[in-house]
């Protein structure tokens, strides 16, 4: 590390200077041209190394996302985390500006290529999920709450996109995309969870036993929705919500996806939860009091809701893994920064071996989780098991790495300004939402069920 000199050449304690003949980097220079290509050393950081491995259009996406996060999110991150929880339906001017800025930058509507959405066409040679993963990682690295405020939008829009219903896409997605690009603070939200169904809204076995809480009753020309949804990210400020409800007198297999618009009579955000972290984003309780939803606001047809829900989760759980990687990276960056600028006994902490060991471990855990996500997201049709594995593995990693960052900062981790404790509070949510990590583990087995049953019924099985 430059500047840390206690002998002739700059080096860290316990290491040789990279120009020392016994350092691998100096030694590599003595090799011939061909082997040198195999072992070359370049003094760039891990992020740059990984970015360069991506195809050019995704490199650009990743670089832009980082730059946007640093410029637009970083200045707001700590302040919005401390701000009191907003009243339902209220967005601070700062957050409104952020949403419009993000929309104008094309980052809210790039699930589709231009001219339908705002994504660069060249990117769409690569799966949408991979694109989402690259972006959310960069946003959550800087601030979980702001990331969730901006990214729950994708989750809300996903059932409409997945329905393949061109009329619904044309009527509900594209106008909002255009408004977003003009800088209007319009967002989507996704509403499946009910007071009596969290896991039961994400797991078929539980759903089979559940008596639906939000019910749609037939009325002339449409349906009347009654009941409550809870914990809906951005549900109080969203312009358009994809709301899942059962048909009157039927079970969860009748779940249908309805588009509910802010301002529809009878629809009311009741309260926002007081949360541990992710505080820039609201988790809202929504009341549906006989809300009239016209027939043409049904997405994908009656009784298609469960399929759209599960498909949405398959596509969103990998990005949840990716945002967890962003937390791990954010925590790692904070720890590196602290270790290089904090001194003890006349030395920067980075000089101490135990600190080096811990930082290397944090890097390794983060890179391993990222490798899993990148490899898994590079498929157009992610299967349930893969998505769930990404989700629980990366989110457990994120919390572990955030713990390690707090340990490295020691009692300084307690100070809000140092950022590590915020990463922990934000990251802790990821083990709970989009299906708890327990439910996601069970989803892996559900996905392999038939193969496992076949093995279990094989007469050769003892």
């Amino acid at each position, binding site marked *: 590390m430059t500047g840390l000199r206690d002998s002739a050449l700059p080096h860290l304690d316990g290491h040789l200077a990279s120009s020392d003949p016994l350092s691998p980097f100096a030694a590599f220079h003595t090799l011939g041209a061909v082997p040198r290509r195999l072992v070359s050393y370049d003094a760039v950081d891990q992020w740059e190394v990984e970015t360069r491995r991506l195809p050019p259009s995704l490199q650009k996406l990743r670089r832009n996302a980082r730059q946007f996060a640093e410029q637009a999110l970083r200045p707001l991150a700590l302040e919005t985390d401390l701000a009191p929880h907003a009243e339902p339906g209220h967005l601070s001017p700062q957050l409104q500006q952020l949403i419009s800025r993000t929309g104008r930058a094309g980052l809210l509507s790039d699930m589709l290529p231009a001219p339908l959405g705002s994504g660069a066409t060249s990117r769409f040679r690569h799966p949408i999920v991979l694109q989402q993963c690259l972006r959310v990682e960069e946003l959550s690295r800087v601030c979980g709450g702001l990331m969730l405020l901006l990214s729950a939008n994708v989750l809300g829009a996903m059932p409409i996109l997945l329905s393949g219903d061109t009329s619904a896409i044309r009527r509900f997605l594209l106008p909002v995309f255009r408004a977003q690009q003009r800088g209007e603070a319009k967002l989507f939200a996704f509403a499946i969870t009910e007071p009596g169904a969290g896991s039961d809204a994400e797991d078929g076995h539980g759903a089979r036993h559940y008596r639906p809480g939000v019910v749609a009753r037939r009325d002339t020309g449409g349906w009347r929705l009654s009941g409550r949804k809870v914990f809906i990210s951005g549900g109080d400020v969203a312009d358009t919500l994809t709301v899942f409800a059962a048909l009157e007198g039927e079970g969860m297999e009748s779940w249908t996806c309805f588009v509910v618009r802010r301002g529809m009579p009878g629809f009311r955000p009741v309260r926002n939860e007081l949360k541990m972290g992710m505080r820039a984003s609201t988790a809202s309780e929504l009341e549906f009091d006989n809300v009239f939803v016209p027939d043409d606001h049904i997405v994908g047809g009656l009784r298609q809701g469960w399929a759209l829900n599960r498909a949405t989760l398959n596509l969103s759980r990998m990005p949840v893994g990716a945002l967890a990687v962003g937390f791990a990276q954010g925590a790692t960056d904070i720890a590196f920064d602290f270790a290089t600028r904090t001194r003890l006994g006349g030395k920067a902490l980075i000089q101490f071996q135990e600190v080096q060991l811990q930082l290397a471990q944090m890097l390794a855990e983060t890179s391993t989780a990222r490798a899993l996500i990148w490899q898994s997201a590079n498929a157009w049709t992610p299967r349930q098991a893969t998505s769930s594995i990404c989700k629980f593995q990366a989110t457990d990693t994120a919390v572990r790495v955030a713990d390690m960052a707090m340990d490295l900062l020691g009692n300084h981790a*307690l100070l809000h300004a140092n950022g590590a404790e915020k990463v922990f509070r934000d990251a802790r949510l990821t083990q709970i939402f989009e299906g708890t990590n327990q439910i996601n583990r069970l989803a892996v087995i559900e996905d392999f069920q038939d193969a496992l049953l076949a093995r279990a019924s094989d007469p050769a099985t003892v």
Partner: protein
Amino acid sequence: MTNADALMQESPSTGDGDALPIEAVLDEVRRFGSHALEPAVARHEHRLGPERLTALRTTSSEFGLLCPSADEASGLGLWEAVERNDGRRLSTAALRMLAQVNMGFAWQLHQFALSGHFERHVGFASTALNLVALQGRYGLARHALARYLTATAGPDDLIMLRDYFDTTTAPGVLLHAAEDWAGVWLPELDSASVLQWGLWPRERLVVETHRHSHGLDELCSFVVCRRGEAQAAHRTQLDIATSRRLLTTLLTLNAMGQLATGLGGLDHAHRLAADYAATRRQGGGVIARHAAVQLLLSRARQIQQLTSHSLEACCACAPDSAQTLAMLYQTRATLQPELCRATSDALQVFGGMGYMRDTGLEKILRDQNTLRVIHGTPIELQLAATALEEDTP
């Protein structure tokens, strides 16, 4: 024979004189916890404000839990009869009990009680609420502090220690305490390299107050430096052996307090989670029936049992011995992260509700994290314990 067995033999379980009326004192603590403290903290999402905290502390002083001055010590308050096994057991049990209701309240009482023990030991009569700073700028000064305690510190260790305890320059030391402290005892190596303590009234310090800390919301973080040319109001004149013994005892009692408070917090988290699991229905029945939830709850039980037994073993050892401190440091290095994980598991039982302030779980987790990272994180504890174990003459 293990280290712990040997130490327990040195410090027979009966201690000196008659047994302390532990159960009677704990009954009183229990009553205080349920009648006075619990109603004040029942709304988890509301911070227990400084005035209420002070009022509750006064009540706890009135029934003798926190001794208001050296000459009023009954031997039954927190960290009063520290030389006796049952005295240490009484203190850890009382802290655990208070932390079952609110960890922040328990921790500030522990801090003031520890400072009271210090002042009695150095013969300083005070009715003011002083703190004793036990941690320097960062961590545990790697091996240096441990080597000072075992009389094996070399010149490099002393350089490290001087820097570690230096409060003349920013950032100074970080305290996490109740807002109404009057002064703080800051350690400093004197010219003969003996660790002495100076009492610094608050007005002679530059104090930066941080109201937003990770956990123990009832308290604040303070970054403390000495003010310009200001002098300490009082200084100790300890010989080196006394200085070492005193610091060893303080660090030992502090670590016991940390474990006891963490254990009380886990008791609380487990109780809340078990109650919730017995009523919340998902997956076709109450969630307590699902193996996934049973595993989460069972981890909390394991760590409760392990911490309780370890604490009992540590209480039975002489508090002024480097070996006891090493044992406590190793125990903390193992159990403090486990207390966090088990609390996190209890939170997980609540699903999304666990993430919300009103259920209280997220606060207990933040409090546990706080206790994990102050006074040595697991890696620092291991380095210090290794130095204590290797170098004990």
